[in-house]
Structure formats: C-alpha cells, structure tokens
C-alpha cells in the first residue's frame, strides 16, 4: 500500500494509512523511564514490584507499573486522611478553582492524554480524541460548578471523607473523571486505583494535577491488581467506596463492605437492550448499532448488545447491518481511519471468542464481515448473531466485545418483556418515530439510562447508573453528587455516632402473667389477636406461633403472630401484585391516601396514644406526642407525593434529558426499635408516597401499634398489598427479605450486626440498601424525614430525547 502511486489511488479510491504520531506520548513515558511508582501525597513513590502494561495493538510492553501493597494503600489512605481537614474546609469557590484548573490542564494536554490512552487501552485515537478526553474535561468543568455551588445546593451536608475508588480499563481516564470530579467537588479526598491493564493515563493525570496545584494528598493514585483494590475496599479508614466494573466483583465489594458503615456506589455490568420498532429510521438505526456495540470494541458496560427488532422489519435491518459491517474498519488504533481498535487484553479476547463459540454451538447464526483482520495485536471482528433466543447463553451473558445478538418481537408489550428479561438494568435504547410509543416504552424499561433514537450519549450534567444488578448510585449531575456527601447531623458527634443497641428480644412463647388492660379500657376486654397483614387481609402466621409482647417494666401487653419465611414470601407476592398499579398511580392519588391515613389515625388518636404509652412505658402525653408526630409525618409525605420532581438536565444536545424519579419497586423495611409507630410510619410513608410497595417488619419488641395500624390501613383506601406487615423476629425476617431476589430494596434501622447481615445478603441481587445503625431521633424532622428518605425511595432514570424535524 505504501508504494501506491497517486495514479493508482485515483483508480482504486482506497483509504490509506493516517497515523497519529505517538512521539510525544512515548517521550513522556521515556521521561519516566517507562517505570512508575504510585502517586501518593503529591509525589511519586519509588517503583516497587513491577508488572507489565501492554499496548494491545501490538502486544508489546508499553510501561511497567508498581503492584500496590497493603503498606502502599496505608500510606495513600493516610495521605488522603491528612489532607481531608484542610481540603474539606476550603470554601466551595476555592475547590471550584482547583477543579477548573484540572479541566484546563486536561484540555491543554488533550492530545497527549488521548494518545497515551490509545496506546494503553487499544481504543481508536478518534474515540480518545473526540470522546474520552473532551468528556473528561467536560466532567471537571461541570463539577467545578458543583464545588462553587456546594454550600447553597448541598446545605446540611458534608463530604463523606476519604474515598476509595476502583475503576475499570474500558474508559480509563473518563472513569477517573466520573469518580474524582464529584468526590473532590464535594470536599472528599481520594485514593484511586486504575485498572492494572490501563494505569497510564491516571498517572499522567496525577502529574497534571500536581502541576495544577492540587494540594498533596487530595488525590492519590495507586496501581495494582485486584489485591490492591481489595486492600482499599477493606481499609478501615476509608469512608466510601466507588467502584465501576463487573457485577461479580461488585458483589464481592458489597459483601466486603457490609456493616462497615462505608458508603458505596457500584456501576456494574449490563446487557442492554437496543429496541427497534417498525417505524424507525432504519439507516439511523444502523449507525446507532455501530455507535452501540462497535464503539470502544464493544467494551462498554452500557453497550446496546441485545438487538430487539420488530419482526416485520428484521430481515431488512439485518441486511442493512451486514452491508454496513463490510465498510467498518478494524486496525491499528492510532490510525485515524479506524472504527474498531484492539481488545484490551488476551484474556478478554479469549472470553469473547469463547462466547461466540458457545453462541454457534447453541444454534445461533454468526456473521462477520469478509475483510481480513490485522495479523498481530489483539483484535476481534465486528460480529452479528441472528437466530438467537432468550434462552441462548449469548442473549443473557455480558460478552463485553464487539458482538451483537439479535432477537425479534411482535408487539411493543413483548419488546418490553424481552428487554427486561435480564438480571441487568444499566441502559436501554429505543428507536421509533412515534413519540407516543417512545414515551410509553421508556418508563417501562428497567434501566437507569434510556436513549431514544440515539445511543451511548454521555454528559456530566446527566446521571448515569443502573437498575437491578447493574449496580446503584449515579454518576453525573446533581444525583451523582449525593453519592459523595452525608447529612451533617450524622457527623455532629464525631465520626463514631451513637450506635443503636441490640434490640430487646422476647420469647416465642406465652407470657407467664395476665395481660395488662389500659386504665381507660373496660374492666374486661375481649381477647385480641393481632395478625399479620398481607395483601390487604389480616392473615394468621404460616406457623401458628405467637410472641408475647411486654411493656418495658415487664408487664405483658399482648401477643403477635410469629412471621416466618413463607409469610415473607406471601407478602412479597402481594407487594408485587400491588406494585403494578400502585407504581403507576398518580402522585395526587397517593397523596389522597396518605392524607386519609392521617385523618383516620387522628380519629383514633387517644387509643393509639394509650397503646404507645403502654408499649414505651411513658405517660400518655408522650404517646399523644408520637401519634401527632405520625399524623404530621403522613401529611409531610402526602405533601411530597406529587412534588418530589425529577429534573430536565441541561445536556449539550438539541433535546432534553429527563431525570425521572421512579419507584424502586418492592421494598423490605425493618423498622427501628424505638418509636413503635413513628418509626414504622417514617419508613413506610416515604416508600409508598413514591410509588413503592412495602413489606414492613415492625419493631420486634413493640409491634402492637403497627398491628393496630392495619385497621387504619383498611379504612383508608390503601390498595391491598401496598403495605404488608409481618411481625416476628426482626433480624431473621430482615434476612429473609434481604435474601429474596424479588425484593428490590431493603431498609434496615437497628443494630450493626443486623445492618451487616442485611447488607451482605443484599449482594445476591444487588438490592439498594438504606441501612443505618446510628440511633436516629425519629421525632426530629432533620433525622426522621425528608429528602434523604425520598432519595432512598426512588431511582433516577435519565431519558435522553434528541429532537428536531
């Protein structure tokens, strides 16, 4: 080719090589002798035990980096801890200036960073130049703004502290930006570990940060493999972990941090649907597929990798796709005319090939273009599977390569069913020219990001993150900033807040004394049988055991049913049945029911006050106070029901990104041990106000106010199954809820052991957890209600809608 003459090319009209120079990037590596230590406390450490970092386009060694040890992690965390007081006390404007400087440095050295990234990762320089690095700069600019506005926009909140961040190899510097920018904007200090395949750009960034005057210790970069990551996750002086990577590792981290009090955000795997309806612009769809699965070699967690096509147009679309694949170009990633670069590592390439083999073995049809692949380096051709069924391995498993699998559907309803038939929920794409269809489908998709007539759009102003086992927490926008702050009251008494004591327990047995009768009751009351409340019905416990309930002074007050696994199972079924319509009910309708609950509770104010007085061993006026607080709280969430709005994010497209607050689904709630009724109301009300349905386990020691309350539920038009109450051993029932794969979130307020058990068990299906071992004052508005609870009761879905005719 190199000898082709102008006259030859005039005839062939072939493309020639258009290499981007790597001279400056190589020179930068050479200045470091291609050997790197860690970047701790503003300085390089002496290189230690080195591992090789490769150029995937050749397989050659690019540089050598240091395997981070426990001691290295200790040093980095200590540096971050030491830097934290000064950094977090800087005013927002001062931090904004630092973030602005980082954005500027990224722009000033954009090409160096782009070429380094391409050398290290194997992705095309077109992408690093036009997408990765500009988005990195954009992220720091955007978050310079959040730093500037921090005091006003996050009033009542403080940075979490020292944040450990573990990032993947597919967008090395961009993932750094997504993690570091919000952390620093909020006033945290950072220990970041880039992936061992791709540590170079993070090291270069650390050097730029020093150049930009970022104080030592604010950002520390440690290189190494999973063991280094493990040390960061396990470190006792780290206050939060932010991780992007596989669901498998995310699960390990969830378990490892359970009960530690560490805040956690996880951005994990995906198998995102890419849905094409029959009225779509098919040529646009074809380019969409290119941008979805042949972007970054398909190594994109949110890649549209399941092509769901309406049956009538499937043949035409597949034909167009195959033709388009013939003109894709795989090759040396520094060549500016290349669409698809190299796969990051041989182990990934082997995995992709293995899954393609499985696909063929299972009967799917594999299609790859006719052109030849580069001979050396780690490359995989763009690949399109047809004749794929939902039961096929390749339809379920994340391939993380340039491989699209195609399935067909008949109706919009079936498209949603297929789209949601996955453990993941990161992103979804849909194509239709019918706005009614688009806006009908978008809310039905279980995904944190939905792109309409576009795909893989990213911006710092819009939140990104998953539903289901794609993780939790958001990155970008206001919703992303919440991951890096905590309410100030939790810090009022220092880092070790008061912890809830072990809940008092009582035997599952009859009491050995007669029940006390309240002073204002008749001389002889009828024996009462509080039951469980499941699916709108009072239900006897599956196993007919009862638990005696006592006043604090030991006086027996009554008995409650002892719920077990099957009762929880039944309650979850009931909650799911109710969720179908409750989640779609209007905020206004939900508010009416919450107001009605308050009205009917108010009507029985005296009775509940007596009950609470007896349960807590307090004078009746204290009981009255708690009832009044409950009525007020119900009003609060009735008020919120139609006011906790999402947002329209200001993203740089002609269009809108709607950040919608969607209910999470079915929430298991283990209520606090104090405040028998107020604790119950404080958890249940925000959950149902936002459209969730709940299974509530009331205070173990004092459940009788909650069981009395189901009569209020029955008279207040609460649809069956929206609130379910299962009494019994709190921690055991909470564990069953946490273990249940069809419960989408769990809230637990109580003893640290319970928190730990619930958080660890929730890893199985990546439940959203809202667990707190701190002793809250539920009667205070600051600690017992408000946006903290509302945020826990929703997940944000960002729907990108480009428009224009």
């Amino acid at each position, binding site marked *: 080719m190199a000898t082709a003459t*102008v006259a030859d090319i005039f005839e062939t009209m072939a493309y020639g090589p258009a290499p981007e120079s790597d001279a400056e990037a190589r020179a930068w590596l050479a200045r470091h002798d291609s050997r790197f230590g860690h970047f701790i406390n503003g300085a390089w450490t002496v290189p230690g035990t080195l591992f090789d970092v490769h150029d995937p386009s050749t397989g050659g060694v690019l540089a050598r980096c240091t395997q981070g040890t426990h001691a290295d992690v200790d040093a980095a965390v200590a540096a971050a801890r030491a830097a934290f007081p000064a950094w977090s006390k800087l005013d927002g404007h001062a931090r904004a200036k630092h973030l602005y400087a980082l954005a500027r440095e990224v722009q000033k050295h954009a090409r160096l960073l782009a070429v380094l990234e391409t050398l290290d990762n194997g992705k095309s320089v077109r992408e690093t130049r036009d997408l990765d690095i500009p988005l990195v700069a954009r992220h720091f600019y955007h978050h310079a703004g959040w730093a500037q506005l921090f005091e006003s926009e996050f009033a009542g909140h403080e940075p979490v502290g020292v944040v450990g961040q573990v990032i993947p190899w597919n967008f090395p510097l961009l993932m750094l930006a997504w993690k570091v920018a919000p952390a620093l904007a909020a006033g945290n200090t950072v220990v970041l570990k880039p992936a061992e395949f791709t540590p170079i750009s993070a090291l270069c960034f650390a050097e730029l940060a020093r150049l930009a005057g970022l104080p030592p210790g604010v950002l520390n970069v440690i290189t190494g493999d999973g063991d280094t990551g493990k040390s960061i996750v396990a470190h006792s002086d780290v206050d939060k972990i932010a991780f992007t990577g596989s669901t498998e590792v995310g699960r390990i981290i969830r378990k490892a941090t359970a009960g530690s009090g560490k805040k956690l955000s996880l951005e994990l795997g995906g198998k995102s649907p890419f849905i094409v309806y029959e009225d779509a612009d098919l040529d646009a769809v074809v380019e969409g597929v290119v941008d979805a699965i042949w972007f970054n070699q398909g190594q994109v967690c949110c890649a549209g990798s399941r092509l769901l096509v309406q049956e009538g147009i499937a*043949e035409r679309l597949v034909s167009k796709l*195959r033709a388009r694949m013939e003109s894709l170009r795989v090759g040396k990633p520094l060549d500016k005319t290349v669409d698809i670069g190299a796969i990051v590592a041989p182990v990934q390439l082997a995995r992709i090939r293995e899954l393609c083999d499985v696909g063929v073995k299972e009967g799917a049809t594999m299609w790859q273009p006719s052109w030849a692949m580069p001979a050396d380096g780690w490359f995989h051709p763009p690949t399109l599977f*047809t004749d794929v069924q939902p039961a096929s391995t390749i339809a379920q498993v994340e391939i993380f390569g340039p491989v699209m699998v195609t399935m067909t559907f008949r109706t919009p309803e079936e498209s949603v069913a297929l789209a949601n038939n996955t453990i993941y929920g990161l992103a979804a794409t849909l194509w239709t020219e019918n706005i009614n269809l688009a806006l009908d489908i978008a809310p039905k998709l279980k995904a944190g990001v939905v792109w309409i*007539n*576009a795909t893989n759009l990213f911006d710092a102003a819009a939140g990104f993150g998953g539903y289901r086992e794609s993780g939790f927490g958001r990155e970008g926008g206001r919703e992303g900033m919440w991951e890096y702050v905590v309410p100030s009251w939790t810090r009022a008494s220092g880092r070790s807040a008061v912890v809830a004591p072990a809940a008092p327990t009582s035997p599952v047995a009859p009491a050995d004394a007669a029940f006390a009768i309240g002073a204002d009751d008749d001389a002889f009351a009828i024996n009462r049988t509080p039951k469980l409340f499941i699916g709108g019905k009072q239900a006897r416990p599956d196993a007919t055991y009862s638990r005696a309930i006592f006043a604090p002074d030991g006086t027996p007050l009554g008995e409650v049913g002892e719920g077990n696994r099957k009762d929880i199972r039944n309650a979850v079924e009931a909650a799911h049945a109710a969720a179908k319509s409750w989640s779609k009910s209007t905020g206004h309708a939900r508010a009416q029911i919450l107001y009605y609950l308050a009205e009917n509770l108010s009507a029985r104010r005296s009775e509940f006050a007596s009950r609470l007085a007896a349960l807590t061993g307090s004078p009746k006026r204290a009981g009255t106070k708690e009832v009044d607080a409950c009525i007020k709280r119900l009003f609060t969430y009735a008020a919120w029901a139609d006011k906790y709005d999402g947002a329209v994010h200001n993203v740089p497209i002609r269009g809108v990104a709607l950040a919608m607050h969607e209910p999470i689904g079915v929430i298991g709630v283990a209520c606090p041990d104090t405040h028998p009724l107020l604790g119950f109301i404080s958890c249940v009300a925000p959950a149902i106000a936002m459209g969730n349905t709940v299974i509530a386990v009331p205070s173990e020691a004092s459940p009788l106010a909650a069981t009395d309350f189901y009569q209020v539920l029955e008279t207040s038009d609460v649809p069956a199954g929206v609130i379910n109450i299962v009494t019994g051993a709190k921690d055991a029932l909470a564990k069953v809820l946490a273990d249940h794969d069809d419960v989408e979130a769990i809230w637990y307020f109580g003893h640290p052991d319970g928190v730990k058990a619930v958080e660890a068990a929730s890893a199985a299906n990546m439940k959203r957890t809202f667990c707190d071992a701190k002793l809250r004052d539920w009667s205070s508005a600051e600690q017992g209600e408000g946006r903290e609870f509302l945020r826990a009761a929703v997940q944000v879905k960002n729907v990108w809608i480009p428009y224009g005719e």
Partner: protein
Amino acid sequence: MSRPRLVLSTPRPAPPVGHVARNPGMPLDLDTVLNVRVNRSAAERRASTIGTRRTVKKQWQAAWLLRAISCIDLTTLSGDDTPGNVRRLCAKARRPIRADLVDALGVQRLDITVGAVCVYHELVSTAVDALKGTRIPVAAVSTGFPAGLSPLPQRIEEIHASVAAGAKEIDIVITRAHVLTGNWAALYDEVKGFREACGDAHLKAILATGELATLTNVARASVVAMQAGADFIKTSTGKEAANATLPYALVMARMIREYHERTGFAVGFKPAGGIRSAKHALEYLILMKEELGDRWLRADLFRFGASTLLTDIERQLEMFVTGRYAAAHRHPMP
C-alpha cells in the same frame, strides 16, 4: 415463544461495473414515498462524524483531490456572465491543474478534466464551442432556474432549447410548493415531463433542499424525482439561503441506495453550493464511499456543483508536491 429464523432473501444488487444504465423511472409509488423516515438528530450525528471517522493523507489525499476535480461541474451562474468569462471557464475545465503539477503528480495519462461545465442557457453554445474536441459535457440550468416558477410550457421549452444548443445535461429545478404541500403526484408529473423533454440529455433534479424545510421532505422529494426518471438528484441551486450540507447529502445518498436496491438503477448525486474547500470536498467523497460505495466516486454518478472549489484543490495539490503552503494567485484563474 417460537421464533422464525431470519432468512435474508434479498441480497443487494451489485453496483454497475462500467456504463451506468439510465434510470428509466417507474410509476409513482406513494407507499414508498410516505414510508420514508428520517430522524434528523441521528442524520446530523452521522454527518458530523463522516469527517472524523475517515481521512486521507499524503498521496491518498492527492489522488482523492484529483478525483474531486474530475467530478466538478465547473459552474458560472451570474447575471453578468458573458461569452468571455465562459470561454475562460472552459479553458480551465480542459486544463484544471497546472501542467508542472500534473507532471509532478505523475498523472499525465489520466488526462484529468473537470466533469462538466455548467452555465445558463444563453451561454450553452459558447461553452459547447469552447469545449470542442474534449469529452467535457455542457450542462445547462433550466426550467426557470433558480425559483422554477415560470409557466410550465416555457420551462419545457427551455429544456428543448438548451438540448438543441448542445447541452448534454439539464439541471432542472422542481416546484418547491409541490413538496411543501405534499403534492407528490404533481412533483412526479413535473419531473417526468422534464425528463421526457430532455431526450438523450441527462436530467439532474435540483431539489433546493434549503427550501424544503425538513430532511424528511428532502428524502421524499428525492424518491419522487428518481421514480420520475431523474439521472441525478442535486441539492441546491446555489441561490438558496442554505446550500448543500452533509446531512442533506447523507439523506439523499441513502435514498439513492434504497432506490438502487429496489430497482437496480443507479442514480447520481450532485451536492452544489457552498463547497469551497478541498477538505469539505473530501468529506463529500468519504460520505459517498461510506454510504454508497466506490462506484459513486466517478463523474457518471457523482458531481460537485462548484465555482471556487477548484482553486483550493489546486493549492492543496501544490502543497503536496512542494511541501510549502500555496497561494491562489499562482494558479490560473477560471
């Protein structure tokens, strides 16, 4: 759920190898016209990455720029055109590149000329005379160019007159009102009538994309023009407020592809107006190669309507040869 296997029963027709068979047109197929869907944001996104996904450097760039020259309809469409400036234009059309550059590039045997010379009717005979002995056709803008709102019989007659004067290509303008009011049958009849009037001369249908309001309208007008027998579809007169753009070109190229797939006939494409830089010309060539394939990189299926583009290309070619940035005054003006 049992699902049928996806069987691909309709492979794409191969592009023409040598001679392009003229598009005879077909009966108006309104279903096809109305089923056209164009998503503007997606089209713009694709168009914006045409020039970032592909590039040509060094001898590839030189060769591609020579190809661009061979596809230029070298144009003058001014009220003050005279035989004098048209003869000057034709001389440039014969020898678009300085002889020393042709030698340095080693492309003497390619005998590169522009694709055609494009003028108003009054100057057709002047151009035909000036181009005697070459293979360069003369194109005439016609049918009440640029607005196309003179009486239909006169527009038809205008075509006859230009063909009689020796024009081998007729660049007609359509009645934009037919598109804006969705009167596809009227548009079809109009273009079909023009095509009949052309006889053996090739018809290029100027859609005046900048006045059609939406990309969907541009696409639908493209389909109707091809069904009515257009040999080329062309973006603009150069007189509208908005000239050729890559999104218009993308949409029109895709309609050409669709028409070729359905009928087997290859229709040409001509972006016109506002294409002044070599870099911009390369983007159009890349777009054609990517969306339609190499066959649409030749003058029988692709033209640029341009007047000043050639000068910038000459400068870039000189830069390639000498390694020095070039000046326009060192190249003979058209």
